[in-house]
């Protein structure tokens, strides 16, 4: 299957610092690609490059084989590449519906309310439709962010730590939601620290450390990778063949 | 040679104004950087500095050289009151709120000045002989040289305070990253107070010193604020060096402009420069610092 979204040889330099070095990835429809790595590894910068908030110093980003890395952020969103943020972003004091239909409005949808209602139903917030965004609990606000993104009718979803700060029950809900979205055909790139979520839902995993890609592959393969263990724990794995990251990675991340 | 003398004259005329702009802009930059407030009332500190000096000298018969620092102290006290009563409550307020408040403050101070001191422009009486001196065909007066010396010295002092003292370093740290500064134990409220007072002091000093030949009147604050903003934008909105260099350059440009173009248009130089700058170099001429 051809890739919907491709990142090719992207490097980003901020002043004297290389935030990303020669990063490449590809994701297809109906696939969940997780990007993991210690804090500061460049994951959010990667999202910023894909969505046009930051221009790559070198390299390009292709969506449906067309370069998008120089387009303005709002244009990229209109094309179908939509993200959520690490720090919850909602439309404050507006009624829920007004914020969720933003994406539909942007695309000139004839019935933005309908699109918003669908999105809210998908994430399971339909019952709270009449509330204001700032009246929701933290967990619900994270779901709201995904609804906002969905209403923009994306093809590619970039989710930035959607399960952060959530308890076990809430993260399970997120995992179910992501699975549902995958079945519907979205291409999903997920940045996450919660290893349970990453291991349960990812088709492939990429590991970043200090802006470089140090591992890529199926979740179990990556988990056993020496470089990854070293990056997370800062030490050499005691026995190369038998050590895997389980709960330890959660503790470090 | 005569042409060179004329050029020199215009440059000299502009130099003092440039130093005044630089002083006012340094303070504005400090307030903007530390408190994230575009202080539209900044020029009023300049104006009140001038009026305070005038009344100290002419009404209270205070010695001119004593009146200058005294006037600055008076303005700093006023600034402290304003900071404690108003801006302390607006610590994390949005841009529109703080800007509107400073606009209101500017109006308040300007019209209070009208009520207290009347609209008449007042020149501050000073002990310098008025006879002009000349070097190589360029004319100046002792007062002018004194004013130049003081403003230049204050710019240097300001620079040293910012770069070398503990307080200066603390202010710059807050400038760069407020949260980090708070985390390492810098008391943000104190910093705000110092930054605001510091800015007001420099502006007041400029007003006090220039009041000897530029007559002081209530509306002069508005123009000073605008020019200071122009300088701050040209300098990059966060750079002290930019404020100093920008202030001097603007002063010199206006001096030349007043000399070679009609004086009405000279004020446009700064404003046009700002808009052009935005077209071609949106990040200003200098980097943050």
């Amino acid at each position, binding site marked *: 299957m051809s890739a919907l979204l491709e990142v090719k040889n992207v490097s980003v330099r901020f002043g004297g610092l290389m935030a990303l070095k020669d990063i490449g990835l590809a994701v297809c429809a109906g696939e969940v690609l997780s990007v993991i790595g210690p804090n500061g590894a460049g994951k959010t910068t990667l999202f910023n490059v894909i969505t046009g908030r930051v221009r790559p110093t070198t390299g390009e980003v292709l969506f449906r084989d067309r370069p998008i890395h120089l387009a303005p952020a709002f244009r990229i969103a209109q094309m179908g590449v939509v993200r959520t943020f690490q720090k919850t972003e909602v*439309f404050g004091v507006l009624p829920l519906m007004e914020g969720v239909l933003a994406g539909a*409005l942007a695309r000139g949808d004839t019935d933005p309310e309908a699109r918003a209602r669908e999105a809210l139903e998908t994430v399971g917030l339909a019952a709270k439709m009449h509330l204001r965004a700032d009246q929701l609990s933290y967990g619900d606000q994270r779901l709201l962010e995904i609804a906002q993104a969905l209403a923009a009718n994306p093809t590619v979803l970039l989710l930035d730590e959607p399960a952060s700060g959530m308890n076990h029950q809430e993260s399970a809900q997120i995992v179910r939601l992501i699975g549902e979205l995958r079945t519907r055909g979205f291409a999903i790139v997920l940045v996450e620290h919660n290893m349970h979520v990453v291991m349960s839902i990812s088709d492939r995993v990429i590991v970043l450390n200090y802006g470089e890609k140090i591992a890529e592959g199926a979740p179990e393969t990556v988990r056993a990778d020496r470089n990854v263990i070293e990056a997370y724990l800062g030490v050499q794995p005691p026995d190369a063949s038998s050590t895997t990251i389980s709960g330890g990675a959660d503790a470090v991340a | 040679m005569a042409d060179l003398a004329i050029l020199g004259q215009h440059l000299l005329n502009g130099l003092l104004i440039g130093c005044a702009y630089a002083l006012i802009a340094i303070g504005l930059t400090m307030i903007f950087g530390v408190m994230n407030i575009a202080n539209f009332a900044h020029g009023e500190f300049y104006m009140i500095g001038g009026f305070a000096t005038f009344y100290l000298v002419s009404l209270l018969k205070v010695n001119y050289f004593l009146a200058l620092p005294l006037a600055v102290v008076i303005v700093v006290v006023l600034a402290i009151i304003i900071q404690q009563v*108003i801006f302390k409550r607006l610590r994390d307020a949005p841009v529109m709120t703080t800007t*509107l408040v400073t606009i*209101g403050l500017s*109006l308040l101070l300007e*019209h209070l000045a009208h009520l207290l001191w009347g609209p008449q422009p007042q020149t501050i009486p000073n002990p310098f002989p008025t006879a002009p001196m000349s070097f190589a065909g360029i004319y100046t007066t002792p007062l002018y040289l004194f004013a130049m010396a003081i403003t230049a010295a204050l710019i240097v002092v300001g620079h040293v305070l910012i770069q070398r003292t503990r307080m200066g370093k603390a202010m710059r740290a807050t400038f760069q990253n407020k949260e980090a500064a708070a985390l390492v134990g810098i008391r943000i409220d104190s910093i705000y107070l110092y930054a605001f007072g510091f800015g007001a002091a420099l502006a007041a000093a400029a007003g006090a010193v220039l009041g000897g030949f530029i007559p002081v009147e209530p509306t002069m604050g508005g123009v000073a604020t*605008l020019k200071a903003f122009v300088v701050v934008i040209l300098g990059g909105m966060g750079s002290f060096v930019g404020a100093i260099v920008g202030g001097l350059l603007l002063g010199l440009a206006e001096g030349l402009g007043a000399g070679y173009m009609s004086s*009405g*248009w000279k004020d446009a130089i700064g404003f046009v420069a700002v808009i052009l700058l935005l077209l071609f170099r949106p990040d200003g001429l200098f980097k943050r610092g």
Partner: protein
Amino acid sequence: MADIKPKPRHPLAPAATALVLLALFALPQFVRNEYLLHLCIVSAIFVIIALGLNLIVGYVGQLSLAHAAFFALGAYVSALLFIKFKWSMWIGLPAAALITGIIAFALGWVILRVRGHRFVIITVAFAEIMKLVATNWIDVTRGFMGLPGLTIPALYIPGLGAIDLSSKERFYYVALTAAILTFWLCAKLVGSSIGRAFVLVRENEVLAESLGISAFRYCMIAFVAGAAMAGAAGSLYGHYVGFVSPDLFNFSYVTIMLIMVILGGKGTLIGPVLGAVIFTFLPELLREASHYRMVLFAAILILATMFMPRGIIFPLVEHLAPLLPRAWRKKP
């Protein structure tokens, strides 16, 4: 605050609107005092200005201090067209709106790429440049001497001939119609998807952009529309007063416009209207004490901005007038 369920439109809403309109149109029958009529006319003109400024300040949330400059620009355009080409206000007004809109477009193209503090200061710089041009381009604008001799045109109706509109009573209808038209346009704009996008940009620009809304585009729309309204108002004002001068560029105009919008209630439709009316009448009551008045206004502006972000008038109205149509009271 309780959760917001959609309220049914108040059954009396259309009746209330009709009543208000009727009262406004009948006003000159009851108010004969020339001076009061004058204030009503000026209020109507400032309603147009305030509604326009409200689009930029209240709806997209950018503080533009160039609004008075657009007002004065419109006045000058209309005046120059009248003096050079003998074009009456009927042409001058739309021309003023158009040309002001075009200049706002060009300016916005450059300066709306930055927002926050820099934007505010640039708008001031622009206003100052305009003032300097009006003052110094003596060949065209006659500088401080201004452009006198502007007249209110007659209205030609086939069958009825020329109706003279120069009495205060008659011109009131012109101003009132323009104000109502502007209000209607704003209501349509604000209720449309453009208006909803305005609010999204104001509430969280970064989020709006990430969902496909171009903040630049919507700021431009608000900026240009607001400027065109100010320009139209300038034309009305110039012809009414009969004289145009660089004083129109004074910073005091922009402050009073801001006070009208902020204290009246930014981000609503009725707020600027009330603000315009009240702050046209109020200064006149304190006319003799102009500096005291400005000190008072400045203090009110500071206090209201700090403690009453929804304005002073609007919350009062909310308590006193539940009969107003819901759309007029739409919360930001």
